[in-house]
């Protein structure tokens, strides 16, 4: 914590950045509009959502069974399956595979798990050239930024800022007058890297237990170019990505893509199953799948099993009033927004992440749009309960609440204190409104408070009805 600014400092920086607000609203606004249109045209959504929830719950309840089945079928297809208890273990496995293959250059397709376990850093620390091939990941690699959204990692950059970045870093940037010209420049920049890479690393949207296949969805085709030309393809995947069969993956895909972008399908939906076979024209010589726990089995035992349903669609971020104001970086974690505020205390520890579950209005829109019906507000309340029990709440807030609760149990005291407050407040009033008052700065810094008059409702009621 010591070297990173605290949550409120990051929030203040984000709120003071009007360009960031424009960037967030452009992308999340479009995403909300498109999702709403997709849902309006899909009357089966509630049933599909219940099915998606049930599929994930079934897999999570039978995780050991499906993990073993996946491994058996993947191995039969020629895949090498690795098991990692932690993020560090997973990174070590990937680095070891690269070293054994004497790899120099690694291409990577976007994977939030990779970000979670610190794989980009581990690859560079091992002396490998890391090339991010997802357009947005390419942008943030050039900028040296972490992702700010789980679907659009460069959401915090406006297209104007991206043009500037490409002009500074690309070999042959051209005019950068249109989005098409910018994409063409990135394509020129990345094409030879794709072909020269020794190892391609991707994530997984679904691990299909009964075939041993790995399913990825992308819109740019970069995952296919990352995983096909290199000699070695490595998949890193969280163990919660399992589904029983391809049919189940399809049921989840319908929910994932509509919730994320409003489209029915992504441009590319690819199933990778084992290395290149004798009759295949292309494909990797080695195909590795690294199954990563990194806190997931712990979540099962900590009342967070429902969070393992998450398919990383980003809908909860796009609809979150807090995310929309502060953006992803203010969360100071791999996963921002409502889903991130549930996951980050698992990954980084509650003490460090305590602000995240608290910085939420519990308005419930995240749960409403979640395609697998994760009760995010309930899970966030669960973290607040643990924070309270462990004494993380700032002392002033804690004592104010304890004092208030003491009075709430004693109606006469409660009313006495209430009436006292109501007699003091009008002293600060001007024209019916209070715009500054001691101990109310949190409210009056930004808005006025109507001045109460005439005593409490209970007192007025007694007077009026002479009780």
């Amino acid at each position, binding site marked *: 914590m010591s070297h990173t600014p605290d949550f*409120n400092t990051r929030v*203040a920086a984000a*709120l003071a950045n009007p360009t960031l607000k424009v960037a967030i609203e452009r992308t999340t606004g479009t995403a909300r509009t498109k999702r709403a249109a997709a849902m309006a045209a899909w009357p089966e959504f509630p049933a599909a959502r219940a099915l998606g929830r049930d599929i994930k719950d079934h897999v999570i309840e039978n995780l050991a069974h499906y993990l073993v089945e996946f491994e058996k079928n993947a191995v039969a297809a020629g895949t090498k399956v690795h098991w990692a208890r932690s993020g560090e273990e997973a990174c070590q496995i990937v680095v070891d595979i690269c070293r054994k293959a004497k790899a120099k250059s690694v291409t990577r397709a976007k994977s939030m798990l990779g970000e979670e376990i610190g794989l980009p850093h581990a690859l560079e620390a091992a002396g490998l050239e890391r090339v991010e091939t997802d357009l947005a990941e390419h942008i943030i690699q050039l900028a040296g930024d972490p992702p700010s959204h789980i679907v659009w990692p460069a959401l915090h950059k406006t297209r104007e800022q991206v043009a500037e970045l490409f002009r500074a870093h690309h070999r042959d940037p051209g005019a950068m007058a249109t989005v098409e010209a910018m994409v063409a420049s990135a394509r020129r920049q990345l094409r030879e890297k794709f072909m020269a890479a020794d190892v391609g690393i991707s994530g997984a949207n679904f691990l299909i237990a009964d075939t041993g296949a790995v399913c990825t969805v992308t819109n740019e085709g970069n995952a296919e170019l990352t995983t096909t030309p290199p000699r070695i393809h490595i998949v890193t995947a969280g163990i919660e990505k399992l589904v029983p069969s391809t049919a189940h993956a399809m049921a989840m895909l319908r929910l994932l893509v509509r919730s994320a972008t409003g489209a029915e399908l992504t441009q590319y939906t690819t199933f990778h199953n084992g290395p290149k076979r004798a009759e295949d024209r292309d494909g990797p010589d080695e195909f590795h799948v690294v199954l990563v726990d990194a806190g997931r089995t712990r979540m099962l035992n900590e009342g967070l099993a429902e969070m393992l349903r998450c398919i990383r669609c980003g809908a909860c971020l796009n609809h979150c*009033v*807090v995310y929309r*104001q*502060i953006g992803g970086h203010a969360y100071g974690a791999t996963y921002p927004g409502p889903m991130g505020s549930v996951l980050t205390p698992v990954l980084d520890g509650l003490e460090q992440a305590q602000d995240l579950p*608290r*910085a*939420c*209005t*519990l*308005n*419930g*829109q995240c*749960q409403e749009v979640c395609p697998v019906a994760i009760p995010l507000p309930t899970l966030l*309340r669960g*973290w*607040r*309960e*643990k924070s*309270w029990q462990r004494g993380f*709440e700032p002392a002033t*807030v804690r004592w104010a*609440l*304890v004092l*208030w*609760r003491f*009075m*709430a*149990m*004693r*109606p006469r005291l*409660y009313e006495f204190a*209430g009436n006292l407050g*109501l007699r003091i407040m009008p002293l600060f009033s001007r*024209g*019916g*409104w209070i*715009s500054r008052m001691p101990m109310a*700065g*949190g*409210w009056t*810094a*930004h*808005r*006025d*408070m*109507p001045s*109460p*008059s*005439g*005593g*409490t*409702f*209970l007192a*007025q*009621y*007694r007077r*009026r009805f002479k009780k």
Partner: protein
Amino acid sequence: MTLEIRPAENSLPHVALFATCLVNAMRPAVGFAALALLEQAGCRVDVPQAQTCCGQPALNSGDTEGTRQIARRNIEMLEPFDHVVVPSGSCAATIRLHYPELLAQDPAWAARARNLAARTHELLSYLADIRGWLPEGISLEASATYHDSCSGLRELGVKAQPRKLLAAVKDLTLRKLEGEETCCGFGGTFCVKYPAISNAIVDEKAVAVEASGAALLLGGDLGCLLNMAGKLHRRGADVRAFHAAEILAGMGDAPAIGEIP
């Protein structure tokens, strides 16, 4: 021996009006409006004098054991009534949804919590759905816009009821609020724990309220209304804010939130 025969009186539901902390302290008019509406809708209403708070600040701050203490106390106080009616979606939801969850593992209280929960209602949905009541002879020549407070909307399904009731107020036109289902940034203790974020959210809401062109801002939760009205006033907007119950009770010509009587 004399028998007291009061058939009409006895057949009326005996309702406890749980006013909520904010109404009690900041806007007693909402309590009197609720009282009048419930009586018009054929209820025998009492205002239990020992009422304090539903416990929501403790619940949302993670003080679960503290909330349980308050819940048990409120159950004891409110269970003699046929119904408990609350002029707030979030306070009603605390009793209706969260008390049973909080006390589910407590053999002495679980059934009592569930029983009270089933008989606890948010005011506007109670009037429209349970009492089948509509305002009669109320008119207000004004344009209004309506903000759906989150707990009422998503935890209790309060959406159509306030609009149905307000549509029966003569000469009142309801204008659509862009983002009417988007949180206003109040969030109970959230607005003072994270004032800068809350401010950014409510500022956006105030812009939308102003853009609606309505003269009145209505809602069913005083917390959200105080937040929005306070921001509108700070911005210098002349939108006047009322709890919907006040309009339905014909109190729309009284001072709005923040106006001096």
